[in-house]
């Protein structure tokens, strides 16, 4: 056979849409931000105090928004109870239905225990609504033992969430871009870059630029790790000896769209690395680039991965077209994050100096 033209092909639609990208993006950032909250809130390292508290805010905002995006990607969201009534534990997705609540409950408990002394201090000072703060503080003890225990539960949940999100996609043999052992690592590493980026962005929003050098030091490390994993993943996907690698290469060969996408991915990572390395005092630019990089990785993997045809030659367009659903997923998740940010920052003054009392104990 010399040349083949598919005159009648049938492209199937991308069944995991932008909602899924948003979910993987937000839950990854949330888990990473939770880990960034540990040095200040559990280990009480002085230079981390402010950053860790902001990271906790990031973990809460993104962690509470992510499941909404996940539910929205289900075509029968009203049936989510079936995940518990008919769990098929041979499926990673079924485990996810247990890991997400474990993580979120652990995170909420950890956040509440960590914020109790601050609530009590606010109530004492008569900050409005004092009664609300008093109730929420529930005595206001700074119980480091309980905080540690809750942090362990949340950490276990976070690790399991990172594990299942990576494995869930990695096990799909039919998707050559997903079926590589490096995928869970790539998702976890870029989640950390995103978590640092979002924490930096929240710091900038709060006008706290002093944390920039600390965040940029870690951002530089995470961008090096992202670059290394991204390179290894690209090499593995394109040159692996598997049939999957051949399929991927075949589909990407000569596709300027793919070349551009891969180039954009590397360019964003290199730029974020360069900025965090050379502009230690800058917060917004490295943060935004890191977020863009983490989002692009998920966009390319999840949507681009679905665009490679399993049979035939008809590829499925995956470019970001602003359909009503795509717009809704971006605006919806951004809007919910914003609403949660406003609600949480209005209720809890995350920079109240009263916190220092608790932290020094």
């Amino acid at each position, binding site marked *: *056979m*010399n*040349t*083949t*033209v*598919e*005159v*009648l*092909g*049938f*492209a*199937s*639609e991308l*069944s*995991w849409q932008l909602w899924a990208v948003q979910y993987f993006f937000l839950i990854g950032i949330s888990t990473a931000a939770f880990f960034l909250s540990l040095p200040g809130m559990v280990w009480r390292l002085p230079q981390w105090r402010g950053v860790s508290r902001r990271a906790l805010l990031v973990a809460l905002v993104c962690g509470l928004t992510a499941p909404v995006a996940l539910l929205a*990607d*289900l*075509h*029968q969201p009203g*049936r*989510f109870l*079936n*995940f518990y*009534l*008919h*769990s*098929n534990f*041979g*499926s*990673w*997705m*079924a485990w*996810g*239905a247990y890991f997400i609540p474990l993580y979120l409950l652990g995170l909420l408990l950890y956040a509440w225990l960590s914020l109790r002394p601050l609530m009590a201090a606010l109530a004492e000072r008569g900050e409005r609504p004092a009664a609300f703060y008093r109730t929420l503080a529930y005595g206001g003890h700074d119980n480091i033992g309980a905080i540690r225990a809750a942090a362990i539960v949340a950490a276990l949940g976070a690790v399991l969430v990172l594990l299942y999100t990576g494995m*869930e996609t990695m*096990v*799909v*043999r*039919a*998707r050559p871009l997903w079926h590589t052992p490096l995928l869970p690592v790539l998702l976890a590493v870029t989640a950390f870059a995103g978590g640092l980026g979002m924490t930096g962005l929240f710091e900038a929003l709060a006008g706290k630029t002093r944390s920039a050098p600390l965040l940029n030091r870690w951002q530089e490390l995470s961008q090096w790790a992202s670059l290394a994993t991204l390179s290894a993943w690209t090499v593995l996907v394109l040159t692996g000896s598997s*049939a999957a690698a051949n*399929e991927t290469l*075949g*589909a990407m060969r000569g596709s300027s769209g793919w070349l551009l996408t891969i180039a954009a991915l590397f360019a964003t990572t290199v730029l974020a690395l360069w900025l965090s390395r050379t502009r230690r005092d800058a917060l917004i630019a490295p943060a935004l680039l890191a977020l863009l990089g983490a989002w692009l990785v998920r966009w390319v993997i999840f949507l681009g991965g*679905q665009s*490679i*045809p*399993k*049979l*035939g*030659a*008809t*590829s499925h*367009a995956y470019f970001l*077209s602003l359909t009503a659903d795509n717009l809704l997923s971006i605006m919806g998740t951004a809007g919910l994050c914003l609403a949660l940010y406003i609600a949480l920052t209005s209720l809890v003054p995350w920079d109240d100096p009263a916190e220092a009392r608790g932290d020094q104990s």
Partner: protein
Amino acid sequence: MSAHPDLSRRAFFMTLPAVTAGLAVPAMAAEPAGPHWAMLVDTRRCIACQACTIGCAMENASPEGRFRTVVATYAVTTETGQAGLAVVPRLCNHCEQPPCIPVCPVGATFKRKDGIVVVDGERCVGCAYCVQACPYDARFINHRTGKADKCTFCSHRVEAGLLPACVETCVGGARIFGDINNPDSEISRQLKAAEGKTRVLKPEAGTKPRVYYIGLEEQLSGRVDGASAANMMWQPGHQGA
């Protein structure tokens, strides 16, 4: 058989007494294994008319733009410059090792005793994980029902003693449906006659498909290296995009 496409139907009806008897006395342990449904597609007899595509869409009320079976069509030029048409009628392969089943988080998709892979519409949450896992793009999310949708070998028709709609409508008699557990069935005989010359789609996926092909070029049995005219064509729901 080749001159009598109807034989596949006749052979099918001959199996019916066994089916009904099997249904009537399910508790008899010593009973031989029931039917195991499969399909043989003779691509040499397919004229790419898409009657099966339409027949299936009508029978199963497929949503606009989504199909349970299709006939992918290729213009092929050989090394000697000869041009011709090649076809790959596609549907769910009712795989013996179906990757779509273990991934389902709620166990909504399963393989019946008679080999047909189905979706329990009452349980499906529409997560589309099975759509991702199927190596053959044989599944899709039906936006009208919000559930996974796929070929069922027309199980509702088979249970009523009829042939799948695509088999019934095939103009060239290219689709032969029957029980591979019965050595005398038309499909078993044809498979035996063509032994060593049949193919399945993507054998490397290890799924053990139960849809077999005669006359299928190896180059067309998976992802095809070639140009696609489809992106230049009208696609339902994407016009003007």
